[in-house]
């Protein structure tokens, strides 16, 4: 696995990203109970290796678009933790000045084109970013993240076709966590996702989403293809979803067995640790230190978010248009 040849710093960085996502989400889950975070949110815990593995293969100026379960993708693409946390708390210092919330976190400077409250809504937008990159000749690549449930929205199929006939530098990353909300994927999805994409002559790969190196490697191949004019790829990445569909979901439609097995055998963080420690690339103490640093970072982000001002009342009316006349 080529990624194992990464320099030490990079391997630490991978763990830091994954750990940051995990703790960000776990902390959100805790904070929800304080009532300080408005509404509900969809947590990415369990799926970290997918976002991190994919973004590891991207350039900083590459694009991604995300879903309602978008925190992991945002963090992996480099969005600031402080601003994200502030956004979730609905503060003026948030990524979207408090106006977007969890489902709309975006940071165009980081190439993060937005989470999306509409299932599959990001796929065609990402085709547009890829087209833009192609026409502007920048060799940027665009990644559209989507869930297994999203695969049944028609606009996904339309995007596959458009991406292929226009040979767009795009990668469709389907994160299959087995469920769309409370509904098991097998109950609502016929056939196979990779064969669906192959129906459009799009190359595909099935990937173990608990293995960050496997995700990286599959993405690297797809990015290479995209950057050199080879068009789109679909990666079908299998991941566990740790929490319920959203933070308030009692999650009783999954058996204790299923949930236990998942946490026991499919924890990407634990698998990573044993992998790199086993290969003697890092020592436990290195990783423990990362964990401590992450803890600090999250604590600080939460404290800063709590202390941050709410948006000014006038903000209700601004930013609808660049100019309205």
């Amino acid at each position, binding site marked *: 696995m080529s990624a194992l040849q990464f320099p030490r710093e990079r391997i630490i960085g991978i763990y830091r990203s994954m750990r940051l996502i995990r703790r960000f989400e776990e902390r959100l889950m805790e904070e929800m109970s304080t009532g300080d975070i408005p509404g509900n949110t969809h947590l990415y815990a369990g799926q970290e290796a997918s976002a991190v593995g994919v973004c590891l293969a991207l350039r900083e100026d590459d694009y991604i678009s995300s879903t309602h379960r978008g925190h992991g993708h945002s963090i992996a693409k480099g969005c600031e933790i402080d601003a994200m946390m502030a956004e979730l708390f609905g503060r003026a210092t948030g990524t979207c000045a408090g106006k977007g919330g969890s489902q709309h976190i975006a940071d165009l400077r980081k190439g993060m084109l937005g989470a999306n409250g509409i299932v599959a809504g990001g796929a065609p937008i990402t085709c547009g970013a890829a087209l833009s990159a192609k026409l502007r000749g920048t060799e940027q690549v665009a990644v559209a993240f989507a869930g297994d449930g999203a695969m049944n929205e028609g606009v996904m199929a339309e995007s596959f076709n458009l991406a292929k006939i226009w040979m767009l530098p795009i990668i469709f990353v389907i994160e299959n966590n087995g*469920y769309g*909300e*409370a509904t*098991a994927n097998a109950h609502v999805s016929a056939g196979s996702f990779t064969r669906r994409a192959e129906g459009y002559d799009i190359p595909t790969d099935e990937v173990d989403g608990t293995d960050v190196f496997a995700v990286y490697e599959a993405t690297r191949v797809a990015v290479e293809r995209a950057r050199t004019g080879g068009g789109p790829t679909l990666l079908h990445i299998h991941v566990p979803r740790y929490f319920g569909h959203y933070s308030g979901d009692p999650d009783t439609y999954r058996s204790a067995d299923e949930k236990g097995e998942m946490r026991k055998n499919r924890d990407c963080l634990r698998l990573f640790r044993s992998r790199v420690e086993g290969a003697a690339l890092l020592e436990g103490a290195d990783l423990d230190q990362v964990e401590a640093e992450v803890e600090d970072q999250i604590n600080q982000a939460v404290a800063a978010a709590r202390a941050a001002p709410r948006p000014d009342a006038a*903000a209700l009316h601004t930013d609808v248009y660049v100019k309205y006349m």
Partner: protein
Amino acid sequence: MAQKSYRQAINEALHAEMARDPNVILMGEDLTGGAGGSGVQDAWGGPFGVTRGLLGAYGPERVRDTPISEAAFIGAAAGAALTGLRPVAEIMFIDFLGVCFDQIMNQAAKFRYMFGGRARTPLVIRATYGAGTRAGSQHTQALHPILTHIPGLKVVMPSTPYDAKGLLIQAIRDDDPVMFLEHKMLYDMVGEVPDRSYTIPFAEARVVRDGKDVLLIGLGRMAHIAEAAAEELARNGISACVIDPRTTSPLDVETLVEFAEKIGRVVIVDEANPRCSVAADISAILCEQCFDALKGPIRMVTAPHTPVPYAPNLEDAYIPSAARVVEAAQSLLRTR
């Protein structure tokens, strides 16, 4: 009479009609919640717990958890309605109208007219709407003006548990496509709801309270905002009449005109964005039909021309408040 929630009232209506007519079927995403999972079935009883227990009573053939394919299953519901069933389909949030609008606007709504009157489409589409849930711009809209605009659709917006049950039973027995809009912030509201089945005809506005100085017209959740405003006005010696149209299409123009003429001052409260809203629509109808009886401009209290913001302080400011309604009413009384 029994006290029940708006949620339960809707659940009862579905139960009653499914028991009464085997052609009534349900479809939607996570309508049971848990389909195909390893744990509890009917775990959610619907995204908002509205459809709980129906799976157990009527089985998976009639209570169908769908893929996330609104265009396909709304279209399928329309096609099933055209061929003998009476489907009740659910769009989880009305905001998702965007992905299935064609099947509603160009297909179901137009079958009868395009086919020269030779089709019936007894289809109900239930959807949640409205702000207040801190869910951001794509899960909080109130799109009833768009639906009201479309010939061939009926649009129902119950404001109480009692109305929710009676209007839904009416909707299911209706032979035309009906959009049934449920406000998420009302699900826990409790009120008197008879156990028996009953219907409430469309285009029959409800006079929430009578009054003589100013007429407040409020739709869906806004009926309650109007009522709260009326109470506040009463404390200031102003007698406000509150009317809830209950359905925007058909609209009970007769009752609205009657009271507008009698009272002469009108404030319309609408949670939708202002442009081409139902507030504007009713204002224009009243201006045209009872101009001479008006003692002042018709005032509209609506959301601003902005998406729904996430931050609670902004979202609260977005939603029309009783204070704004009071202020509009008072401004009318000042300029008599």
